[in-house]
């Protein structure tokens, strides 16, 4: 067996599953581990990892899909901006179909708004440079992996002297919701599968306070089936021994201290603020807004618009799903009124959403 195959090797994955079963055998209350990264959610569904685990171990999905935790109000503002003359919205593709209060960017595009999907925030800067008569707004949504790329785009726009590039920023940071969920008496999380690439930026040290304050084990894992299963095994071991430490399973990419340069860019361009999360509410210090020194690039300040009154989608359980309190199948809309083709809530829109993963893989 070569090194490459070892990540997918069925025997190895099943061996890890057996070890987890042996460790937890006879346990009355299941151990509940939460993954807080949309890419982990996808991998867990794709490989059917839940079905390999014993009943003593339960995996639940948390608020790890950036599109899913973005509230309607943000979409409504983006939609209002898209209706301004000589304005181009640039965004990652998965924002297009997310319903706001009464429209979506996809619908606005069909009506003639200039909305373009880009691969990188730097592409948005290039569009701004090539179209000086247009105002170009990039929708800055994402966690600590994406936020530094947006910070980089603002610095690039500044270096080029552009005055027509703006960011509508709604970046979020991961450790705060994990603390809130840890403190929630309705939800007993016995350990976190910590996000892989977020951790590449913030470093595994960022989770130490969770272990200290909430006695909850944290393991940073990669995305391969063996990564996730090994991460679960490491969490189970800690939980059963009554320990709560941060461990790095994904050591091929993640370091304790993270990426200092990216952290520096975040600190330069953004300021922490109390951000609203869909379904969870406002979490103190959990978001990144554009720092005052870069206010000229802040679409919210520089391009005032009238935003329609907020309307929530009736019956959609996205909020409870994002907190790991209910499973997609528990939502009355799941698979009926709400499908990937015609999504009601964000968890069904984004491919990283729990509902989309559950729908696609039929579990």
């Amino acid at each position, binding site marked *: 067996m070569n*090194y*490459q195959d*070892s*990540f*997918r090797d069925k025997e190895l994955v099943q061996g890890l599953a057996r070890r987890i079963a042996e460790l937890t055998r006879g346990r009355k209350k299941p151990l509940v581990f939460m993954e807080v*990264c*949309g*890419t982990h959610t*996808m*991998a867990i569904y*794709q490989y059917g990892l839940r079905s390999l685990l014993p009943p003593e171990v339960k995996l639940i999905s948390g608020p790890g*899909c*950036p*599109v899913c935790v973005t509230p309607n109000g943000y979409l409504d503002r983006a939609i209002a901006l898209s209706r301004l003359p000589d304005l181009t919205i640039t965004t*990652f*593709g*998965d924002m297009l179909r997310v319903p706001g209060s009464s429209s979506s960017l996809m619908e606005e595009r069909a009506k003639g708004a200039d909305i373009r999907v880009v*691969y*990188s*925030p*730097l*592409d948005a800067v290039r569009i701004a440079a090539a179209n000086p008569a247009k105002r170009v707004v990039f929708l800055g*949504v*994402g*966690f600590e*992996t*994406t936020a*530094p*790329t947006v910070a*980089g785009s603002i*610095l*690039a726009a500044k270096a080029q002297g552009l005055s027509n590039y703006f960011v509508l920023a709604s970046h979020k940071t991961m450790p705060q919701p994990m603390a809130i969920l840890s403190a929630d008496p309705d939800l007993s999380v016995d350990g976190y599968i910590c*996000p*892989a*690439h*977020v951790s*590449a*930026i913030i470093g595994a040290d960022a989770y130490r306070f969770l272990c200290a304050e909430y006695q909850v084990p944290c393991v940073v894992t*990669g*995305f*391969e*089936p063996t990564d996730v299963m090994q991460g679960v095994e490491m969490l189970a071991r800690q939980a059963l021994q009554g320990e709560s430490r941060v461990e790095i399973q994904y050591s*091929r*990419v*993640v370091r304790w201290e993270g*990426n*200092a*340069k*990216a952290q520096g*860019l975040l600190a330069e361009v953004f300021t922490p603020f109390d951000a609203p999360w869909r379904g969870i509410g406002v979490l103190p210090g959990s978001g990144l807004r554009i720092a005052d020194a870069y206010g000229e690039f802040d679409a919210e300040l520089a391009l005032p618009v009238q935003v329609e009154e907020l309307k929530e989608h009736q019956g959609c359980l996205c909020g409870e799903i994002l907190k790991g309190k209910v499973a997609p199948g528990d939502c009355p809309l799941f698979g009926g009124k709400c499908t990937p083709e015609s999504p009601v809530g964000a968890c069904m829109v*984004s*491919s*990283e959403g729990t509902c989309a993963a559950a729908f696609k893989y039929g579990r």
Partner: protein
Amino acid sequence: MCVGVPMQVISIEGDQALTEVDGVKREASLMLLDQEVKVGDFVIIHAGFAISKLDEEDAKATLELMREVFEPELMG
């Protein structure tokens, strides 16, 4: 959105690198990387930026998996 794809650096000019995977070439900014990078190295690219270095074997293994899990459009 948070998918990071391992790609190989084939040329570097200032802060910009040209990277390649499966014959697909992408420009990537090295602005965020705090590690020394040279031609031939593998890096994880997220939204047009290299965010981390990784060694070749790890990169190849990760890629194999990602091809299976993700839709082509997410692979950038």
